[in-house]
């Protein structure tokens, strides 16, 4: 395998694992598949675009603000739409996330139009190419996305294991009634899951917008990344990371050695294969799955 192929697999896997971790966080907390995750990815990128008015010197602050904003939006979404549906069938809640996705995309189109935007260029920043050993090349943004994915996923795992509120989140996910009786504010824990998920998707959105382009349709990339948690296990962050590499590798190999058109099909093929053969994924918990 050549160095460029390895670089491309790692970059794409980083993107997928950022989005995929978001699906896992929300699912673990509330057993809900958040189909608006891609729209949160897009929204964060638009927040960055809106903040470019601050000027290029404040880029780190803009990135931070964009992530905070999307986390707040996700928390509010949970509080305003998902929380009142507690106790309702999962099917209704998943449908609610579909509705949310439509609303978020529609609002974005109304506010920012469908025109393609390029946030870095607005700031006059060039996304330079880094030449790696053995002839591979990635951009600064791509390298940054890989580093951000490592930090984010590592940070989330540490947070869930070590931080008090992280442990409360795990407890709420495992047994909400017991956790609630022990004084855990389970809705705060669930809202925090949504916020963390939005931050993961948001980082992916910022990377995509800075590296490729920004337009409402980039939300589709969130749906494409759905293959990752389904393959890795909807309850396993580690499984998501492994599945990210697997899906990214499959996509790249399909393009390289078969047909580029397969790049669009491979993630969905993987979704189908896992739903049929191993519905709980590589490292997911074998649980009773509700048929929708």
């Amino acid at each position: 395998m050549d160095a460029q192929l390895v670089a491309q697999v790692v970059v794409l896997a980083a993107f997928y694992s950022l989005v995929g971790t978001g699906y896992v966080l929300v699912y673990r907390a509330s057993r809900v598949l958040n189909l608006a995750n891609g729209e949160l990815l897009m929204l964060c990128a638009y927040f960055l675009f809106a903040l470019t008015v601050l000027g290029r010197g404040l880029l780190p602050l803009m990135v931070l603000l964009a992530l905070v904003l999307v986390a707040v939006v996700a928390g509010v979404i949970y509080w305003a739409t998902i929380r009142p549906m507690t106790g309702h069938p999962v099917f209704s809640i998943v449908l609610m996330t579909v509705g949310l996705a439509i609303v978020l995309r529609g609002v974005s189109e109304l506010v920012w139009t469908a025109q393609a935007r390029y946030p870095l260029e607005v700031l006059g920043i060039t996304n330079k190419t880094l030449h790696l050993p053995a002839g591979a090349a990635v951009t600064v943004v791509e390298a940054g996305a890989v580093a951000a994915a490592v930090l984010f996923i590592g940070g989330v795992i540490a947070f869930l294991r070590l931080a008090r509120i992280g442990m409360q989140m795990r407890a709420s996910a495992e047994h909400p009634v017991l956790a609630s009786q022990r004084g855990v504010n389970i809705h705060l824990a669930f809202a925090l899951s949504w916020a963390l998920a939005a931050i993961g998707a948001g980082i992916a959105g910022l990377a995509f917008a800075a590296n490729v382009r920004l337009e409402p349709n980039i939300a589709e990339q969130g749906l494409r990344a759905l293959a990752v948690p389904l393959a890795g296990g909807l309850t396993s962050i580690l499984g998501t990371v492994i599945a990210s590499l697997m899906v990214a590798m499959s996509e790249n190999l399909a393009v390289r050695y078969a047909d580029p058109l397969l790049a669009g099909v491979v993630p969905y093929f993987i979704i189908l294969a896992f739903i049929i053969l191993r519905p709980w994924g590589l490292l997911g918990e074998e649980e009773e799955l509700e048929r929708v």
Partner: protein
Amino acid sequence: MRRTMVILFVVSILLAACRAEKQPGTPTASPAAAGEPYNVGAVAAITGPVASTYAPFTEGFRLYIRHLNARGGINGHPVNLVVKDSQANPSVAGALAKELFESNNALTVVMLGPSSNILPVLEQAKPLGAAVLSSTGCIDQQAPPDPDPLLFCTPLLAGGIGSHLAPVVEYIAQQGGPGAKVFLSALDIPASRAIVDDATKRLQGKGLEARMVVVPNPPPADLGPIARQGIDFGAQWGTGGAPEEATLALFQALLRQGWRGTWVGDPPLGYDDILERFKSDQLIISFGVYPLAERKPFHAELEAAAREFGSAFPVPRLMYGWALGVMVESALRQCGWPCDRAKFQQAMNNLEVDYGASGIWPAGAKLKFTPTDHIGQRYQRLYKWDSASNRIVPVGPWYRVEHTGKREVSVTVVSQQ
């Protein structure tokens, strides 16, 4: 739960209302044009996977109609333009066309979206004998010598199979010479594939090595693997026949991997802002109208209209839609008053648009449809960013491209101005 669902429902309805709006080209928008309106429908991909191409195109078209109505319409009759959002979905496009014909009594439906939407719209028009004007890649059913009597193609943003990339093929063949390696990209939609396949064969026929790749629709997150194919192929030149979302992303992916070749973009990339954004010697673009940098009379009119009526898009992105408006106005004028669907189809069959007069095309250049040719002529010129003068400059002359058969074309040099 019920309260939440109600809130979501209301928000969705509001959004839908904002999209399927009563258009600004309504008679009430025009104090000067008070007569009965010409009803024109448009099925446009203003949201969905290719919206960044078609939303500004549609906006330019609407802007022209508002501008026309504000000047008194056509002999006192305003144009009532109703735009519906197809989301680039063929079945939605067909259903909306039916609605426009039946509920809005549209004389014609203008289709602004991918080529896959053309035939579903035509299916709705056929029983009514109404003309359909498509503003995307032209298909064989529009080309001479036996076009579908009801189907017409605007030769602005995109051309037909054989004509769309003809000037690009000429340029690359001339500059690259035999043996040069060319990497071509198509989007996985019918017209794009056919256009690029045809260009690949033409380049190979001229002794160049050409390799075509089809990009999935919608394009994946990372076009790097596809770009790598071009680099491994050793491509010195690149081009594509697809909306901006596919071709420009591939060019960027090539650049990210340190590609040193030259990309010659087709007219869907023909906007000043793209050349200004890259400021790169590696990018040349074929424009289907004069770029804003050339400051022609139609640019001044367009800028004034954008100021007067407002637009969410930058002026260069509105040029092609504006030019489409000029075409529709010409057809309605030739139709006269009262105009019905049969008369409009006849007007389209013999349409003559003087695009040279307003500086959309070079002086003297006209678009002419005939009963045997529903694509007509198209004019293209290549432009690039010149780092020395810090501006957009032409690369060579204007080319006039005309179909002589379904996929046979003639390319002639017409003007250096």
